[in-house]
């Protein structure tokens, strides 16, 4: 598996939001057909179907584990079927699996599908789940931990030790919304927001207000990944996987790797991972047209930007506040608005950002299109920021 060996040739996506009547099956079938059609291939070309697990267990997961999808969508030549899950890092884990299947030579076409429907669960079930999901049952949950509290502590540390202001943190929410306002599939497509509104919204876990926290939503997306050779035959604008880097830090937020222990220096954990992706691609920060940052919470997105080389560590807040990461800015970041603007679909946030990355490089991003985008870096990670994955993509091989 080397630089540019594999490429994405088509994507599919359904609107993100609360659609309790739209089942995960319907989402999966819909995005699968869209992606295959967009790729310009036949469903019978698909040799492997990978699905991401629904993060909050549902009957859909069990069905997928038992091979439901290839039969239902007519992937009659499917030879490999599997569910891959690594929390919020699933988007990367599943892509690595797809690359492995392609490298095996058993097939040259893999379909990747994500579908999520949170609205089948009550608010209490969701709160309970997301307390447990991010935190440890023995060491954290008895203290009343929640995912928001987890992010709030990390945000509080980041702000305190870097001098980042709460207005700057709120600015990233606004920037994400501005991007989402250009994305018809985004949960917040038609809802604008100001820094003042973000700061005045209800306090959830100081320093985080409600608008700095995520809203769980239903959604899904799919894409087709193939060999570069086939991609060039069937697609006029394939998007190549050029470089990838990964690292794992911890399960429990209180037990991170040394490089992730000090929130002023979290870029020292992230930067080497991004560097590996850059090096494999033979590219650097200055070559990137877009930075697709996924951190789910605004202060943590700033800590991620600190690692990417276009801003001095600790100064991302000021850059975001200046508007340079918003539409029309010098450093377009997170062009679908991510969890804060597009909506939080569990394992799907990374999928949505990846699919958006592909659209940008195929020139199919509509109103959010960054003109002439050739290369970008995107990331995902899971758990209590347990891991981090950076990928460099391009519509040409440098």
């Amino acid at each position: 598996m080397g630089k540019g060996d594999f490429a994405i040739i088509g994507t599919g996506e359904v609107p993100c939001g609360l659609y309790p009547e739209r089942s995960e099956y319907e989402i999966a079938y819909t995005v699968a057909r869209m992606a295959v059609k967009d790729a310009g291939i036949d469903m019978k070309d698909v040799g492997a179907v990978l699905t991401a697990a629904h993060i909050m267990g549902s009957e859909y997961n069990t069905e997928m584990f038992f091979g439901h999808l290839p039969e239902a969508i007519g992937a009659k030549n499917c030879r490999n079927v599997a569910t891959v899950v690594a929390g919020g890092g699933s988007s990367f884990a599943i892509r690595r699996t797809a690359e492995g299947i392609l490298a095996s030579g058993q097939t040259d076409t893999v379909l990747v599908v994500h579908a999520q429907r949170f609205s089948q669960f009550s608010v209490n079930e969701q709160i309970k789940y997301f307390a447990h999901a991010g935190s440890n049952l023995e060491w954290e949950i008895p203290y009343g931990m929640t995912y928001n509290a987890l992010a709030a502590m990390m945000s509080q540390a980041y702000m305190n030790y870097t001098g980042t202001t709460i207005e700057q943190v709120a600015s990233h929410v606004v920037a994400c919304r501005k991007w989402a306002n250009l994305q018809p599939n985004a949960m917040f497509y038609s809802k604008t927001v100001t820094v003042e509104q973000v700061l005045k919204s209800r306090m959830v876990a100081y320093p985080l207000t409600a608008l700095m926290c995520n809203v769980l939503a239903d959604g899904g997306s799919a894409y087709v990944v193939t060999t570069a050779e086939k991609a060039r035959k069937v697609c006029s604008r394939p998007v190549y996987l050029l470089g990838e880097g990964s690292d794992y830090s911890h399960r429990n937020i209180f037990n991170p790797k040394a490089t992730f222990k000090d929130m002023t220096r979290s870029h020292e954990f992230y930067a080497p991972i991004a560097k590996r992706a850059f090096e494999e691609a033979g590219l650097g920060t200055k070559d990137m047209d877009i930075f697709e940052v996924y951190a789910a919470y605004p202060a943590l997105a700033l800590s991620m930007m600190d690692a990417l080389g276009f801003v001095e560590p600790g100064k991302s807040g000021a850059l975001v506040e200046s508007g340079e990461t918003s539409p029309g800015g010098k450093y377009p970041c997170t062009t679908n608005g991510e969890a804060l603007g597009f909506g939080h679909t569990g394992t799907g946030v990374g999928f949505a950002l990846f699919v958006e990355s592909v659209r940008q490089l195929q020139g199919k991003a509509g109103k959010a299109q960054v003109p002439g985008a050739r290369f970008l870096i995107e990331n995902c990670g899971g758990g209590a920021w347990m891991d981090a994955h950076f990928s460099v993509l391009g519509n040409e091989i440098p």
Partner: protein
Amino acid sequence: MDAKELKEKFHLSDEDVTKPLPKPARWSKAFWEGAKQRRLLLKKCKDCGHVDHPPYLYCTECQSDNSQWVEASGKATLYAFAINEYGVPFAFMPDLPYVTALVDLPEGPRMLSSIVECDPKELKNGMELEVVFEDVSAEITLPKWRPARKSG
């Protein structure tokens, strides 16, 4: 709102309003037994000296089974905190607002805990803390932290 009012208002079960407690594992039992006796214990490897928190089955540094429980000083500094005000599980709603925090022990580990006996407005990163023990059931005592009181 107390547990009884929450149950009536939101049609909840007893389980919904009951705080979850740690279920000690075979290798963490000593920590919880220590807490019950007002002792903050840490699992230290006798071979490589590494202190593991949380404790696991064997040393996460060298995989040795050869460990001992050592008593911590009961002092710590505040690394970061969150003041929880909304959107917590029902069982914790009667406690709102409450503080969850990351505290750094001089012995090495960082712990997730609560800061108590303190106006949240007084919290400052780096402030000195001391451990207190809160009995939450007949079996379980949770170590929590409060601002250090100047001795003497």
